[in-house]
Each structure stands twice: as C-alpha cells, then as structure tokens.
C-alpha cells in the first residue's frame, strides 16, 4: 500500500450517474487487476473504496456510480484538483488458475476491475468472453472499449439493450472453463450456482480502513475469517459461504 496525492486529469459522466476519473500519480503499488484504492473525499471522514479500472506507469482510472454523498462530492472534482489515495489495496485477481477461455461477468459498477483484467488476460494469450449486465441501456459504459479487446454479451434487466434479464440469462460460450466476476452480491451468489466451473469473485463490504487494521470488513469463509480489504476483495468460489 502507498499513500499519496493524485492529480485529477479528467472526470466525466460516461453513463447514467456513472463517472470516469483519470488520476495521475504513483501507481507502483498496483500489482494485479482487481486491486482498489481508498479515496479521501474532502468533507467525509471515511475514505471511499473504488476499484482500479485500468492503470499504467503514471495514471490510473476509476469508474464510480453516484449512490450517496461521497460519490456525489467526487463528481465536483475538476482537472488539476488533488485527491489523497491509499493505493494498491487488496489482493486482486490471480490469472494463473484460468484456462484458455475465461468468462468474465460484471454487473454495473462491478465492471471496472474487469477492464484491466481483460487487458491482462489478452496479453497472457487467453481468449476471454465478457457478459456485462446493467439495469437499463442508459447505464451501459465501456462496451466499445471492451469490444475492442474481447467478445461481449450485453444484458439489461429492462430489455432496453441486448438480452433481457440478468447476466444469468446469457449463454456462456462453449468451452468456457473458468470465471472472474464482480458485481452486486445477489448476482455473485447466483453465478456460483449457475456456472459449473471454478472462478474468482470480487466482493464489496463497508470498510473502516481498507488496509487490514480495523476488522470492519471480515467475512466467514471456509478458510476462517477473512478481511475483504486485505485477504480479498477477490476470493475463490470454493471458499465463499453464502
């Protein structure tokens, strides 16, 4: 983990209530897709955990949905503003157990960490397929960016784009042998029984610190108690107890 000040390069609305922020600063503590940062929001006591959607050696990209006061305050950030981050938190996805045809499943703002993951899987010579789920067509983001990398199936709950229904309405391509998922907890739980193969899931929990000090985010797993912020947020399907 590293604490530092990051300079806002851009902060723009990319879909209904969904914003993309690009920050400039030290990304050296980021090792794996699926890691997150804990953002100090001026005026709020607790930091806000957000997944890193993509990074290079000087910038990182966050995608966030406005759901409350903290994320609403973030929309007011302008280029050249500075934000304090704890960077490089959590374990991130482990690419090594994946077969040749991993399935990525993301619901809403669960999609961000899958973007860097998709880039890394392609770089590793794999052929991932993505199922992206949204409530409605106006919430869709990053579809084109994902399509430039990999094949994509879109689902919307109201049927306004792609397949009507939840992500479990989609048909995984034949030969899918492993999955990576991030999204709301009911979706993750459904996936675990829907998909017959093994995989990794990124969980969300309310956090005090984000770096393992407060036990605010512990869950029960088959490995015993685990901190979502430290041993997670990514867990193997087999260790989760629903």
């Amino acid at each position, binding site marked *: 983990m590293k604490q530092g000040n990051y300079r806002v390069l851009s902060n723009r609305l990319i879909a209904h209530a969904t914003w993309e922020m690009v920050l400039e600063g030290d990304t050296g503590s980021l090792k794996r897709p699926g890691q997150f940062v804990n953002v100090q929001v001026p005026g709020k006591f607790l930091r806000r955990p957000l997944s890193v959607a993509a990074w290079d050696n000087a910038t990182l990209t966050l995608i966030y949905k406005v759901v409350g006061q903290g994320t609403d305050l973030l929309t007011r950030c302008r280029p050249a503003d500075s934000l304090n981050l704890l960077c490089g938190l959590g374990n991130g996805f482990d690419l090594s157990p994946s077969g040749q045809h991993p399935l990525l499943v993301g619901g809403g703002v669960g999609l961000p960490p899958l973007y860097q993951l998709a880039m890394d899987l392609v770089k590793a010579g794999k052929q991932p397929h993505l199922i992206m789920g949204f409530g409605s067509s106006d919430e869709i983001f990053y579809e084109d960016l994902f399509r430039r990398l990999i094949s994509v199936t879109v689902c919307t709950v109201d049927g306004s784009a792609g397949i009507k229904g939840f992500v479990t309405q989609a048909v995984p391509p034949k030969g899918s042998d492993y999955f990576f998922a991030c999204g709301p907890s009911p979706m993750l739980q459904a996936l675990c029984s829907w998909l017959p193969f093994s995989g990794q899931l990124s969980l969300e929990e309310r956090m*005090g610190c984000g770096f393992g000090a*407060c036990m605010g985010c512990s869950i029960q797993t088959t490995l015993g108690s685990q901190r979502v912020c430290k041993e997670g947020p990514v867990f193997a399907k087999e260790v989760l107890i629903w």
Partner: protein
Amino acid sequence: MNTAVTLCGIRMDNPVMGASGCFGYGVEFAELYDINLLGSFSFKGTTLHPRFGNPCPRIAESNSGMLNAVGLQNPGVRQVIAVELPRMKQFFHKPVMANVSGFSLDEYVQTCALLDAEEQVGWLEVNISCPNVHLGGMSFGTEPAAAAEITRAVKAVCKKPVIIKLTPNVSDIAAIASACEQAGADGISLINTLVALRIDIKTRRPVLANRTGGLSGPAILPVALAMVRKVYEAVSVPIVGMGGVSCVEDVLEMMLAGATAVQVGAANLVEPYICRDIVEDLPRAMARHGIEDLNDIIGGIQY
C-alpha cells in the same frame, strides 16, 4: 525539551499510543513506518476464546466520525500469545498494552493472568464496556460495584499495572473511576465509544447489522475531554485519554485535561501515518506553545 512521560511506573518516550481496535497487532502500520517511534500501542481487544464478531455491515459513517460494531473479533488469548506476540516482537521492541475483554468475571481473570505472564506486555488495559452475560447483558462498566469487582479480581492475578478502560455510556463516570481506583486500579483509560445509531432512510433499517455501534473520531473529542477532566478531578492514578484525537494539538489538549498518555484510534484508519506525524510534530508544537516538559501540562487546564 522533554516528551517522555511515565505511565504507571513505565517510562514512555512520548505519550502517543495507537488505540485498541484501531491498530491491530501493529503489523499493518509497521509495514508503513517504524512504530517504535510511538510511546506504545494497545492491541486489539482480546478475549479468552476466539470470536468472529458481528455480521457485516460493521462500519457506518457520521459527520467527523464513524460507527463500528466489530464485536471484538479476535483469535482468542492463546492464539494471541502463540502467534501475534512473537510476530510483534520482530518489529516492536517496547512494552505493549494488552487490551482485554470478557463476558464474565472468570473470562477477564483468566485472560489477564495469561497476558500478564507475557514479557512483552507492559500494561493490561481492561475494557469493561462489555455486556456481562451473568448480569442479563448489562455492561460491567456501568455499575461502580461491578467495575470494582472486576478490578479487584484482575488485580489479584496480575503483577503488571492494571488500567481500567471506561465506557462513556454512563451517568456518572467519575463514580465508576473512583470505584476502580479504590479497588486497586493502577490507572484509568477513557473514553471508549459512544452508543450510536444510523438509519438507511431508503430501507428504514439500521445501517449496521448489529443495529447500534460505537461512535468514535473527531466528533467525540470534546465529550472525551470533559470526561477525562471529570475523572482527573476524582482520582489520583494516571489517566490514558482518548476519543477523537487526530493531531498534535488534540494530544496537548487531552494532556491539559488530565491525561498522562494519549491514544489515537479512528484517525489511524483514515490517515495511516497519523501517529507518526503526531510524534514528529510534538517538539515543534511544544516550542510553539512554550512547553519545555510535557509533564508540566498534565491536568494543567486553567479555570
């Protein structure tokens, strides 16, 4: 210039400590900076048996503070002694404060006795905010007689200084502190968190799975200062002050109210380097406020 203080006979390089539950066993902070520059820290509340704690959500926010209902998650005293203390020894070389919780008199006594025998432990900090299962769940810390009973029982099995940590959720905290002192407490620490509630107005349910939680952070500093002062006027044993401390000025204020040592809790969770920064700021702040020796300001509020 002198920043050193003496807490129950143990010298500390400075009065700044990490507070229990907000500093783990030191591991996460030792990865960031040399935690030997602290006066000391109090490790996570330890119970006789392992505890998973409460279901999530365990954390909620408020203006200038946070609520927690972690529920004393810890691996149990035997695991703390077998794993955490040996690991801590590799990066922390000062006496550490052992924070103990229990749900019966017997649990407190057994846990304290085991930790008292550990070389690394300097002080026992006995958190009496917990509900007593034998008293219908009423907290030990809300009744002078129950607080005194715990103090006596723990003192009987400990050679090291016993500091009783008080809950602020009482009508007369000075009466409880006095009862502990008369029962042999070597020091008093306060305040623990204040009972608090947040409600999600969309679902109309409490944000925390445990319904209520404990409020801490800058929001409670003035409450803590008033209570530390009240206890300082009632007892003559040293006081460990805490509640909302998040900068060097807060440390000085806490000492003026009557604290000999000062713990920093929730602030560590949002500013992981805060304890280091406070220790580094201390000499400059002392110079700015004309303080030659920190001991001179303990309890030094002027009326």
